[in-house]
């Protein structure tokens, strides 16, 4: 799964630590999410969407090949 987490976070001037605090997760988890190393659960994805005030589909998208 691809995501725009890094871009959206940077646009708000937040550090990974700031985002981790808002999501109540570790900084390592934010880092792994941004690098696409970890796909969030649905509840965490909804939380991310709420923090960025955007629908989930504007933040996460399937990687090419995921939909086949």
């Amino acid at each position: 799964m691809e995501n725009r987490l890094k871009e959206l976070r940077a646009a708000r001037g937040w550090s990974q630590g700031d985002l981790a605090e808002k999501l109540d997760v570790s900084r390592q988890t934010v880092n792994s999410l941004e690098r696409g190393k970890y796909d969030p659960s649905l509840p965490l994805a909804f939380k991310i969407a709420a923090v960025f005030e955007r629908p989930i589909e504007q933040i996460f998208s399937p990687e090419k090949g995921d939909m086949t």
Partner: protein
Amino acid sequence: MSERIKKAKRRYTIELFASMGLYLVVLFAALTIAKTQEPGVLLTALALAPLAPLCLACFSFFRFYRDMDEMQKRVSADAAAITLVIGIMAAITLGFLKRFGVFDFEHDMIWFGPLLIVVWGVLRFVLGGRDC
């Protein structure tokens, strides 16, 4: 790291080190006293005494596990699964070595459990990094 997780990790680290310190003290005390004891209730109690601080460490970990975020939980579970495989393979290997009379590890088996905990801790670090 969120303040809540940071606080939980700090508490877990303190409790873990205290439990492990207590474990070593109880273990060596029990081994020393046991040398002068005949088989019986006291010797059984001495043999089981080191389990008490280990139970404290387990309680501490499960409380920390509850406070982890979802990725930390997954990393811990993945590391536990790999540790289980390593533990099973090590136990079978040692069993064969003993059975075939190559080497008898019986007196060193007391370190097997703590060694697996160390393996699991290292794997958590390797799989999840410093924050896991």
